[in-house]
């Protein structure tokens, strides 16, 4: 039991009790990205031309793994950028604007990338 008055705790802006989920998600995406990044880097050597890139992404296994790579990249990136902004941007309004811009950009870029993969698989 805490001896602090509840109002004192609220004004002190204590723990929101949401940090663990962020921490775990950052590490799970990190573990997933380790093999995915190596796999894509190795494959990237054969993806110099437009035809090679289309043929590669049209393969179902490559498409699924690339989609997983896209999801993990943008999820991991926005989790990390969130903490960087929290730590270094001390102007409150700018911090909030940057946090929202990062979330929107990561979501839109990730969504557009996934739809691009779907378009290539479907051959449209």
């Amino acid at each position, binding site marked *: 039991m805490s001896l602090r008055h509840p109002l*004192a705790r609220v*004004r*002190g*802006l204590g723990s929101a009790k949401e940090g663990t989920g962020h921490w775990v998600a950052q*590490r799970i995406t*990190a*573990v997933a990205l*380790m093999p995915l*990044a*190596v796999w894509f*880097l190795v494959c990237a*050597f054969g993806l*110099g031309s*437009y035809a090679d*890139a*289309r043929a590669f*992404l049209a393969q179902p296994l490559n498409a699924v793994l*690339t989609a997983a790579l*896209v999801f993990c*990249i*943008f999820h991991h*990136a926005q989790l*990390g*950028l969130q903490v*960087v902004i*929290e*730590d*270094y941007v*001390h*102007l*409150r309004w700018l911090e909030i604007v940057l946090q929202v811009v990062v979330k929107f*950009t990561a979501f839109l*870029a*990730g969504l*557009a*990338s996934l*739809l*691009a*993969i779907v*378009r*290539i698989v479907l051959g449209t």
Partner: protein
Amino acid sequence: MSSSPSGSKRPLSPFMIGPYYRPQLTSTLSILHRITGVALSAGALGFAWWLLATAAGPHQHVVFDNFIRSLPGTVLLLLVVFSLVYHWLNGLRHLLWDAGWGLEIPRAYATGWVVVALSGVLTAGIGWAMIATRGAA
């Protein structure tokens, strides 16, 4: 965290490199992990551009291709390759710490130097292989 409603100013993750501490290997690698993470976030947008250009067709793909083969594009690509190699290796170091391994000071320094050495070797190797295999523009 500029000021809480109660007016108290409690430091959160104070930035200690510079006026308070001399740079050490451990703190330098720590901030480099964040810098390369931010760089890779920008690189992720480049990756998205490549996917969108490939889906859009040959005319859009050649715009990406011309950029990535240009001098500024090549420099940016090499910076992303270095960031990826470093962030991958140092990220593995972080995951091992999270598992409780390697937190002793001598081991933290030893793994730090391994990351520095491997980052240099792998970035040079991958960078050379990329430029050698992609041929003339």
